[in-house]
Structures are given as C-alpha cells and as structure tokens.
C-alpha cells in the first residue's frame, strides 16, 4: 500500500513524532529504517499514509520536529520526496 516514511535520527525522536501526530488524529507507526534509506546506519522511520503528508509535516513543524528525509513507498520501491 502507498505510504510515506519519515526518516528520523533516533528512536526517541520517532516516539515524539508518533505522539505528536497522534494528538491531531494522524495515525503513524514506528519502524526500523530500511538500510537502503539511511546512510548513517541504524535509524528509525515513522510511517504515515501518503495523503497525510502535508498536515503531518505542518504539525511536526509546529512542534519543532523535522524528519531527516522523506520517502514515498508504492509497495515496491522508495522514492525520495522533496519538500
């Protein structure tokens, strides 16, 4: 299923994002970041539905949170999203 991965720098930041998004009704899930998506090793990702990207980023910005990178997954490949 089409979804967005917000790559974050730590598990703590991922948890903070998950809760921040949950407060405004945007469901998300935390995953270990796929190795191919992080050039730093051992990262975390917060997954949201693609249609939630804009409100999610707005809410995260309000709370001073910024993902390191953003990827869209169509079920097969990851494509970086530039915002």
């Amino acid at each position, binding site marked *: 299923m089409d979804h967005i991965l917000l790559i974050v*720098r*730590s*598990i*703590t*930041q991922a*948890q*903070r994002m998950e*809760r921040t998004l949950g407060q405004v009704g945007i469901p998300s899930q935390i*995953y*270990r970041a796929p190795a191919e998506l992080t*050039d*730093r*090793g*051992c*990262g*975390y990702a917060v997954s949201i539905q693609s249609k939630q990207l804009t409100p999610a980023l707005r809410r995260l910005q309000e709370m*001073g949170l910024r993902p390191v990178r953003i990827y869209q997954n169509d079920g097969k490949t990851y494509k970086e999203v530039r915002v």
Partner: protein
Amino acid sequence: MIYFDSCATTLEKPESVAQAVAQALHTMSSPGRGHYPASQKAEETAYQCRAEAAELFHVDSPENVVFTMNATHGLNIAIKTLIRPGMHVVISGYEHNAVTRPLHTIPQVVVTVVDAPPFEPAQMLDGFRKALAGGAQAAICNHVSNVFGCIQPVEEIAALCREFQVPLIVDASQSAGILPVDLLGWGAAFVAMPGHKGLYGPQGTGLLLCHHETDTVLEGGTGSASKFQEMPEFLPDRLEAGTHNMLGIAGLLAGIRFVRQTGLNAIAGHEKDLTQYAASLLQKEEGLTVYTRPGFACQTGVLSFTAAGHDVEEMGEQLADRGIAVRAGLQCAPLAHRTAGTLETGTVRFSTSYFNRKAQVDAFFDSVHEIIRGNTRF
C-alpha cells in the same frame, strides 16, 4: 529499623516501583536496539519516563531528558561540558564533592566559593551577584544542601545568571521530587538529579536535564548513526552510550508517577512537619546544637545536629545499634561543613521521606536522649 537517611537513598519505595522493576526484568531488553516486543516495551517505558520527567521539571522536549547513573554522573557531564581550563566558576559554599571533585580535575580553574551561613539565602544571593559581576563564566549551585537541608535561592540565582549571561548548573539531588524544579523557567544550562532519592526510583538511576549543547564523557553504541565513529550530535543518544538500565528506568518511571500523584506539596509538607518536630525535640535536649532556624522557613526534611562531648560517628553507630539509621560525618560535602563551621566535627544528619511517621521521630529522639543521658526519656 527506622530509616532516617533518605538524603542518601530513600529506602522505602512505593510498591509500584518494586513491581515495575520486577516486571522489567522479565519483559524488557534495550530501547533502540530492535523491532521486537521486548525492545519496543523498553522503548515505550524509556520514552514515557522521559516525557513524564519533562512535564514534572519543565523541560521543552523528552529528548532533552538524559538517563544517567546518578546525579554525580550528570554533574560530571554538565561540568565537563561547560567548564574549560582556566575558567572562572562561582559555586555555593554548600556544594557536594560531586561538584567540587570534577572541578578539581580541570586545570587552572578559578573557583569563587560563596560563603554564607546556612539558612541565609539573601547573603548567598548577594555573594553570587558579586561573583558574577566580577566576571565568573559559569555558576553551580545546589537547590538544597545535603548536610543542612537549607534551600538555596536558586530561582533568584538563575535570574542573575540570565542577567549576566552566565550558564548555570543546578544540583537538584535533594530537591527533585520535593520542591518545584523548573529547567526552562530558570533558564539553567543543566539540572542534574538522582533517581533514587526523592523520586523513589532504584539506585543506579539519575536524570540530566539539558538546555545546552553537550560534550560526552562516555562513548559507545547508541543504536543510532552506527556507521560513524563520532557520537551522535543529538540528544539523548549523544549522552547515553551503552545498554540502558531498564530495570532502573522502569522503577524510576513508577517513582515519578508516585511523586506526581502524591504531589510535591504533600511530600514536602509531610517531610517538613516531621523534621520540624524532630528539631523541636532535639532543641530541648541540653548539649545539642541543632542546625535550623525558627519557623523552618527555608529548610526541607533534612536536619543536622551535634552533641557536645559525643563524636558524631560514634553517635551514628550507637543510633544504628538501636535500630535507627542516620548519616554521620561529613556527608561527602566537606565544603558545606567548612562554610558552616562544622568541618572539624561533622554532624549527625537526620533526613526524612514521605514514608516516615511521627512515632518514628519519637523513637529516634528517645534513642538520642538515651545515648546522651545514658537513660531513657520516660
């Protein structure tokens, strides 16, 4: 045993703390190390502990709440981040060795010690004002003295530090869980605290609240940015190398919840009432010097005393023989004793927790009386 050494470690913990520790032993691995239930449970517990501590101590983000082994560990990080060789530092005359020993390791540091008698916050504040105006580049102050229980004017000292744009480190070892601790309101660079005293967590836990960039004192695995040999630049990972003490963190979370549910006012009020009562009994006893002030205005549940003709360590042992636990000697704070004029004798320190009761204070006093007079009170 009747325990009056909570200044060192609270011995009686809420039952929820013991349960949380036991549960963690069997269910939690390490946070940030895997996507399986035992790691996720540890992640959830660690995050919740940071988040609830951030709320209690007014930290802007859970990420700025760092787990440490104890307050000493946190103070070492804070001091070694801020203080460089040759810098001028102002400290209160009531600092613990956890502050003075790390400072002692930094070459050519110039330390101005603000001497003021215990329970004289205005004099302490005036001393900080003069030292800051004289060019001090960093300030360190404990919130409450671990020897005398005197409450320092930290809020006012923090305001001075902001005025002079000098970073402040607060040692909240004796106040966390008892008095309001306000990292953002104070504008302090760091606040360090143990988990095992007023927060009722297990030994081996502590928190460093950060509002400043940090240097590391320990390097290693963090479960993040693993390709690089440099420690991550972001908190809390930057300061949390190695496997987390999840038993401790789970217990600390339960302890913080106990404190929040009970309320700081209820805890502080209870401890103060007991200690004021103890002071009133001790002050009636001839030959005792009790370090307190009428009205108990700026004192927590900590009380020091000496007995003429009685060595404090012997008094501590004799009390222990009667089932009363107190701390005697210099309490790892020779500077505080020097400032108060008790360096040569030390003191016997009585310190309370929320779990002490008035009848225990009576039993403590009966024992003191018995030791001094060689007979019982009644």
